[in-house]
C-alpha cells in the first residue's frame, strides 16, 4: 500500500519544525518561506493546520503543465517536478485548486511536496506526531483530500 502524509491538526503546536526541516531538505538552508509544507494559523480557533500537496489523483498541476515537467512517480505515489524541464510558466500554480504548488523566484521553477523520495523530513521533524507518514487510509488528511478532489471534479465534468 502506498504511504501518504497523515496530518492531525489537533496535535500541531505551530512550532514550525516541519517547515524548517522541509526547507533544509530541499534548499539546504533553514528558510520557512521556501518550505513545501506550510503551517497555517487560526487565531480565532487557536489552532494550527500543517498543509502540503496531497498528491491528488486528479493531478491538476501535472495535467496543466505545457512541457511535461511534472511527472507521476507511481511507485511512491508522488507528483514530482522535473527541474530540468520546468520553464517557470506558473500555469500549474493557478491550476492546482489546493494552492500547494508554488513558484520560487530564487530558482525560477515551481516547487511542491515530493515526499522527500519516501522519507519525508517534515514527519521526521514533527515532535508531536501531528505529521505522520503512514499507509494512506480514510481518516483525516486522506478524507479531506478525497472530499476536496470530489468537490472540484463534480463542478468540472459529470455524466
Amino acid at each position, binding site marked *: 500500500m502506498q504511504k501518504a502524509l497523515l496530518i492531525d491538526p489537533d496535535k500541531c503546536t505551530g512550532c514550525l519544525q516541519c517547515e524548517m526541516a522541509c526547507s533544509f531538505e530541499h534548499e539546504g538552508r533553514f528558510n520557512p518561506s521556501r518550505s513545501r509544507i506550510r503551517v497555517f494559523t487560526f487565531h480565532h480557533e487557536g489552532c494550527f493546520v500543517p498543509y502540503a500537496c496531497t498528491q491528488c489523483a486528479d493531478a491538476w498541476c501535472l495535467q496543466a503543465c505545457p*512541457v511535461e515537467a511534472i511527472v507521476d512517480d507511481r511507485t511512491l505515489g508522488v507528483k514530482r517536478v522535473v527541474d530540468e524541464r520546468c520553464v517557470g510558466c*506558473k500555469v500549474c500554480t*493557478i491550476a492546482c485548486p489546493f494552492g500547494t504548488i508554488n513558484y520560487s523566484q530564487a530558482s525560477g521553477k515551481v516547487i511542491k511536496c515530493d515526499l522527500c523520495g519516501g522519507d519525508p523530513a517534515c514527519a521526521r521533524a514533527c515532535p508531536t506526531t501531528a505529521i505522520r507518514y503512514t499507509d494512506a487510509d480514510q481518516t483525516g488528511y486522506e478524507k479531506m483530500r478525497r472530499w476536496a478532489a470530489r468537490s472540484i471534479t463534480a463542478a468540472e465534468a459529470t455524466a
Partner: protein
Amino acid sequence: MQHLIVGAGPAGVHAAETLRRLDPDAGILLLSGEAEPPYSRMAIPYLLSRHIDEAGTWLRPSPEHFQRHRIDVRHGLVERIDSTHNRIHLNDGSRLDYDRLLLATGASPRQPPVAGVELPGVLPCWTLEQARAIARRLQPDLPVVLMGAGFIACILLEALLRRGARVTIVEREPHMVPRMMNPTAASMLKRWVEAKGARVLTGHAVELIEPNGDGLRVCLDHGEPLEARLVIPAAGVSPNIGFLRDSGIGLDQGIVVDRHLRTNIDNIFAAGDVAQGPDFSSGGFQVQAIQPTAVEHGRIAATNMTRDGALCHAGSLNMNVLDTLGLISTSFGNWRGAPDGEQVELLDEAGWRYLNLQFDGDHLTGASSLGHSDHIGVARGLIQGRVALGEWKTRLLREPTRLMEAWLARSLAAAPSG
C-alpha cells in the same frame, strides 16, 4: 474506429492520449499545421530568453512518445472538410478519412489593421519559426516596438530586455493587460515595467509602419514617431476558423459546441483555443484560449468521441497567470465582479502588491492579484468548488490574503465526517 485530430497543440495532444487510453485499438491521426514536433507556444518566451533549447518547448520530451502510443503524427494543412463523406482535403491535394473528427486548430495573432504590417521586420512571435526569426534579429540595443500591452507582450518583455533590446510598448487601450487586470493593478504594472527599463505608451494607436533606411518608422496617432528595427504585433489572438467558412459547421466567435464539445455535426468535435466552450463563471459559452482549458477540452472531447456523451462539461474557469519582468499577476473567474456583488481590494503600492476578491452571496466568484502568488491556486478551489464561506466571508473582507485559511477551514468543516 478512425479518429482524426486537426491541430497538435495541448488540446490535440491530450485528446490523442485520452483516446489511446480509452480505445486501445482505434486509429489515431494527429495532424499538425507546423513541421515541428508538437510543442508549447507558452514555452517560446523561455526559448527566446535562452533558458531552454527547442526541445524544451516540446509538449512531450520523449521523441518516441507518439510512436509508442501509436499516435500517427503528420504534417499538413486542411483546405476543407467534406462532412458528408467524413473526409478532409489537405492543401497538398491529399485526403484523409475519419469516423470521428476533432478540430483543435488553435488561434493566431490578430493582424493589426495598419498599413505596413506586411513589411519585413514586422514579425509576430507565435510559432517556433517566428521565434527563430526574432531570435536571429535580437541583439544589444536593437530598438523593438511591441504593438499591444496584453498578455503576450508582457511575457515577451523579459526575453527582449534580457537580450538587450530597447523596447517600446504601444497600447491603444488606456491601460495594460485589460483582459486580466483593472486600472489599479495595471497602473502599478506600468510603473514596474517602466522602472525595469521599457517604455510604455498607453492610449496610443499605431497608424502606419513605413520603411526607414535599414529599419522601420512606426507612426502613432499622436506624438513622435518611433524608430524600430523590429516590430512585434501582440494585439491578441483569434480562433483559426477561416477554413471552416463553407463547411456547414456552426461558427460564432469560435467553433460553436455543446457541453459535450460536439459541434452541430454529430461526429465532429472541437477543443482548445478554437472552441467556444462552456464557461464556468457565466454559465454560457466563450473562447478562453488558455492552457488549462485546452487540456480539459482535449480530455472531455476525446472521451465523448469514443464513449458517446459520457462527459458533460460544467464549464472551464477562465484564469491566467502572467510574469512581467518578475512581477507576477493572476486572474480568476469573474474578477471584474458583479454589479450587486461584494468586493474587497488590498493595495500596497510601495510593496508592489495588490489583491482583489469578488463575492456573490456566500461564495468567492473571482479574484485578481499582483505580487501575491503563494498558494494562489486556492482561489480556483474556492471559486470552482463553490465553497460556502460562512463566517470566512467576513474574515476575507477584513483580511483578503487569508484565502488558504478560508479554504482549509471551510473544506474541513464541510467534509463529511466518518
